[in-house]
């Protein structure tokens, strides 16, 4: 085949593919602005007849959506901050400090990646119940405080940093914590940004653990609240779509602005193997 028709064909396929990929998201946004009942008509409407903001207003005024937004932001923000500090500390030790048992210990951690998280859920729940942490922010945050994958990612990146910079600080008399804090962390900035986005989005989108550990409506994160809302308002399609938009919007914007960092994280974790 000639390059020219082939080129057209490829663009045609990609164009159709792109449209199909966008349809669910576009319809979600469009239906969220439809007046009640319009999304449940035959034939289906693609665009709202008149722009209605009522469902968004409803979500905030009657259905405490603001509360869930705050919960989600608080939980995802805390997990991101805490895990960034804890993971980068461990990665510093694994990449830049010499100590007995370093390699076996790291291999042991990596082996932990093979264990699916579900295996830990039931005892973890019982443990947190015992500690009185069920239905608290701490309960949602705790399992995300440290992550093997996060340690791995920073460690991989840290190997590429020259030891001479750290040694120079040590010769100047800086203690290890100062070296970590004022030399190592700034050098790791790119990978920390990547990991921060990963963690924030992962926690924001997480469903199963918050579903298990949060029992009280007022504590719900957005995905749990949305699933719960579906139980009561399955018929209010337009309202549900507005809820879906608000759940998806923050992470989508975050991705669109910072996608360079996000994509780098995937390829770092993915192709290095």
């Amino acid at each position, binding site marked *: 085949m000639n390059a020219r028709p082939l080129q057209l064909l490829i663009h045609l396929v990609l164009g159709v593919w792109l449209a199909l990929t966008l349809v669910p998201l576009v319809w979600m946004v469009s239906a969220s602005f439809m007046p009640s009942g319009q999304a449940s008509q035959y034939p289906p409407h693609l665009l709202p007849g008149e722009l209605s903001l009522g469902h968004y207003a409803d979500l905030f005024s009657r259905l405490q959506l603001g509360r869930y937004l705050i919960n989600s932001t608080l939980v995802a923000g805390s997990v991101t901050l805490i895990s960034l500090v804890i993971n980068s500390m461990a990665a510093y030790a*694994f990449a830049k400090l010499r100590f007995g048992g370093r390699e076996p210990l790291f291999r042991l951690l990596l082996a932990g990646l093979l264990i699916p998280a579900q295996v830990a859920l039931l005892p973890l729940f019982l443990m947190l119940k015992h500690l009185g942490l069920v239905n608290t922010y701490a309960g949602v945050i705790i399992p995300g405080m440290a992550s093997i994958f996060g340690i791995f990612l920073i460690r991989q990146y840290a190997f590429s940093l020259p030891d001479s910079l750290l040694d120079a600080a040590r010769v100047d008399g800086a203690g290890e914590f100062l070296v970590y804090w004022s030399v190592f962390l700034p050098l790791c900035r790119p990978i920390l940004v990547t990991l921060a986005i990963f963690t924030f989005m992962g926690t924001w989108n997480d469903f199963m653990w918050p579903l*298990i550990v949060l029992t009280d409506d007022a504590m719900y994160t957005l995905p749990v609240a949305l699933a719960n809302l579906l139980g009561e308002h399955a018929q209010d399609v337009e309202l549900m779509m507005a809820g879906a938009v608000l759940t998806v919007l923050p992470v989508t914007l975050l991705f669109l602005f910072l996608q360079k960092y996000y994509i780098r994280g995937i390829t770092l974790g993915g192709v290095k193997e």
Partner: protein
Amino acid sequence: MRHTASATHDLGRSQARAAWFFLVPALAAIAVFFAVPVVSGLLLSLTDFDIYALADLDNLRFVGLDNYRHLFHDPRFWTAMKNTLYFVVVGGPLSIAVSLSAALLIQSPLVALKGLFQTVFFLPVVTTLVAVAVVWRFLYHPAYGLLNRGLEWFGLGPIDWLGDPAWAMPAIILLAVWKNFGYNMIIFIAGLQSIPESLYEAARLDGAGRWAQFLHVTLPMLAPTFLFVTILTLIGYFQLFAEPYVMTGGGPADATLSIVLLMYEEGFRWWNMGYAAAVSFVLFVVILAVTLLQLRLRGLLTP
């Protein structure tokens, strides 16, 4: 001389001490909130922990392998296993094939606006699974859903996607493929970019056409990426939960009941936590076996 040796020695010792200071938070968190629960989970699966034990631990009894015996005679467990395997065996390869196709198309030197396609194809990955599952629930509506409307144009349907036991799992697979293909696509694109152009040139000098280049250069060079993607995808797909939870609740007639959903229902709805723990360990063993099998296969295929 002696002085320097002892100084290095001191430095080594103080580094080791510092190392533990940096490690303790992560190791403690992972030990207490992951390792200990995993081991306790195994013990839990050997008990009859239920709602009575939840109220008073005196009701807890050690039952040996009873939960596992019970499980292997539980038709719902086998239904869940069958459904999960269906999702993994059909959805996994399908989603990898779609990812690879997208990567190959986008990486074609003929394509303009690569960045746009890449970003849009990736968009579903970053969206919240629960939210898009809610959206797809309505797209699948037999009368008002856009999907059946689309099929109508081609003279097909209507299909009761989520109401018909034969279609519910395919519907969930379709959503999963749409949601996930962008992720593996990115990994494949990176893999494709790392193939040296010189290999293609050499192949062309040998008279290889597009297809032959694909078969003899692209595919073999992508093999490590392929293995990585396959393992990651299958592990992820075995953990199917939110899609059926939101879209079907495991129905109709348990047609989309997955292993993790069964574990959730048994453990957190009926509080049969000993039994649920056994379910989770069977899942773990299956995932581990599949992962090791693939690594072994790769060892056999690449001398």
